[in-house]
């Protein structure tokens, strides 16, 4: 059992999808304008990742090798569509904001990457744990970015339509952080800080 616990841990930190492997960037940068977006996107991506990992590793013995990609894609896109429909029905406001990024989870490099590299070769439990690990790793980075960008970019954090933190009117938010270029910059600085930290620890 502890084998899969270590799998879970490495998904969160050591092999963090966004910061270490540099995959799944498209949605991360665009969606992390608000903490709430980050949360919903993270949960949606984790759900799809875990479910598709389980299914793919369950049927891995029966999938012929040279049509494995189409089969993976059918599995992943079905779960993505389910998430898409459920979100559209129950959380229209959030769906409106995440609109284009939910369908794009299908081509999100994390999911197909993990399916190909991990789930197709390992057992169901290990794949599920890996899915959860990678999902949590993806989500916490998204929420950290969302926190910083929303707080500094708009001066307040709105979670489920309540203002949780408000820096007050005096604070003139640098709108730049909430715009597209701001996302690139923020992510770059995040990695720089991480490099500085790991280099000191690493070397």
């Amino acid at each position, binding site marked *: 059992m502890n084998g899969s616990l270590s799998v879970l841990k490495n998904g969160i930190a050591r092999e963090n999808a966004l910061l270490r492997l540099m995959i799944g960037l498209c949605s991360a940068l665009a969606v992390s304008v608000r903490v709430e977006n980050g949360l919903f996107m993270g949960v949606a991506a984790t759900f799809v990742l875990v479910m598709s990992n389980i299914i793919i590793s369950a049927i891995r013995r029966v999938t012929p090798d040279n049509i494995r990609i189409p*089969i993976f894609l*059918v599995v992943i896109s079905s779960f993505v*569509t389910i998430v898409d*429909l459920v979100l559209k029905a129950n959380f*229209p406001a959030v769906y409106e904001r995440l609109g284009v990024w939910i369908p794009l989870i299908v081509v999100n490099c994390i999911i197909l990457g993990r399916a190909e590299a991990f789930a197709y070769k390992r057992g169901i439990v290990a794949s599920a744990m890996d899915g959860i690990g990678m999902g949590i790793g993806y989500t916490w980075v998204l929420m950290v970015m969302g926190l910083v960008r929303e707080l500094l970019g708009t001066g307040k954090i709105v979670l489920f339509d309540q203002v949780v933190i408000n820096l007050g009117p005096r604070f003139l938010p640098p709108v730049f952080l909430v715009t597209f270029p701001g996302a690139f910059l923020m992510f770059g600085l995040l990695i720089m800080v991480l490099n500085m930290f790991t280099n000191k620890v690493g070397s």
Partner: protein
Amino acid sequence: MSGGMQKDMVRFGIALTVFCAIAAGALAFTYQATLPQILAQAKVEEEKASRIVMPGAEFVRRDDLIEKAAAQFPEFMGQGAGKIFEGKKDGKVVGAVIQLANRGYGGPIRVAVAIQDGKVTGVTIIDHKETPGLGSKVKDEPTFVKQFIGKTASDPLEPKKDVEAITGATKSTRGVSGAVKAALAIYTSVFGGATR
């Protein structure tokens, strides 16, 4: 060689067909389960803007009037951007809400205008692409839209004349005032001046 190919063709063919069919079945099932809710949400979403400008009214979408208006004002109502609702309060038609889009600085600005008895009783910005901090003030400053209340088709609705422009965002201001002016024009042409 062809024997192997036949076997593979059959194997892959069946595998993929069955797989896609199962997936399609599951999705169709979820779609039907969530369909009523989605339609309801869509209706609420569509009328959200109308409800802001004409609170407490029931709305009926008049597709026939939309076509008529789109023919006369293609740049405002064209390509699905425009909608016309008739506002009813306890059964009686009290006015109309016209949603339309006009070109602003950063892109189209979609506006909802409530008109009762030929006078504007409410204006709201549905969405816009104006520059944050400048043009976006048309939506962020509540006082901006209030100045249109009470305008009629005869008013010039020109910045500096009877519309107070936002400093540094004349194009955005012109976008909104143009939209209100168009709404009044559509209202007079479609409803023939007085609400029946």
